């Protein structure tokens, strides 16, 4: 089912806002993560862990979920679909994996914040840099896929196109 152009634009705008917001929130998170790992000031480290927990819970997770849901709605409501083009499929898989890892990781982040809050030496905690940098890379790859849209139609996409072209030929042949 294809959405009308105005609705499609609105959904696309919402998808861009949530996706870019997700990327920006992850970058802010990484700045705190680096502080938590690298700083020698215990209060600064403690504050960084608490802020990481807040950013993850109040910005990263809601934006990630919104981006995935709106992206799926946008894909289903446009000729791009979800499974017709390799780049869309790759982006869908990347964002689903990133969201799943994020949801699992959020418990760790909360535990780290609690641990840092109650410790006199929060610098001994290891931070979450491998996951946060990995997440950023995944989001950047998704961004590149969205911009470049590398060619490639799946078998399913090809059969859908054939179906559509068949309908058009039938409609033209049966014209006035």
């Amino acid at each position: 089912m294809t959405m009308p152009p105005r609705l499609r634009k609105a959904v696309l705008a919402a998808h861009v806002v949530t996706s870019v917001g997700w990327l920006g929130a992850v970058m802010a998170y990484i700045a705190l993560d680096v502080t938590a790992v690298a700083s020698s000031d215990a209060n600064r480290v403690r504050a960084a862990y608490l802020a990481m927990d807040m950013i993850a819970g109040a910005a990263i997770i809601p934006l990630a979920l919104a981006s995935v849901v709106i992206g799926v709605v946008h894909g289903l409501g446009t000729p791009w679909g979800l499974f017709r083009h390799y780049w869309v499929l790759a982006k869908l898989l990347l964002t689903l994996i990133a969201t799943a890892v994020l949801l699992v990781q959020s418990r760790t982040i909360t535990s780290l914040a609690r641990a840092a809050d109650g410790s006199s030496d929060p610098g001994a905690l290891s931070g979450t840099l491998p996951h946060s940098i990995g997440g950023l890379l995944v989001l950047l790859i998704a961004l590149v896929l969205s911009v470049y849209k590398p060619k490639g139609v799946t078998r399913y996409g090809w059969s859908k196109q054939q179906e559509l072209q068949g309908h058009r030929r039938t409609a033209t042949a049966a014209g006035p």
Partner: protein
Amino acid sequence: MAEPNARNPETQTDRRSPPGMPRWVKVTSIAIGILLLVFLILQLSGIAGQHGPGRHMSLDGYSSGAATTWAVAPATVE
């Protein structure tokens, strides 16, 4: 962030037979497969250490349920 008008998705192929998998998909799939294999080998061999939430908790005596029972020295909390 798909822009449907940037490249018409309905006109990317016009063939009689299904298209093959593009090279960028094959190369990426092989690269991801190799990375996963390396990750699995490192995990199973124990070289990479523990992977999971416990890895981040390097403070002595910490466990997820024990966090709230810690005694905090007043001088360390502003």
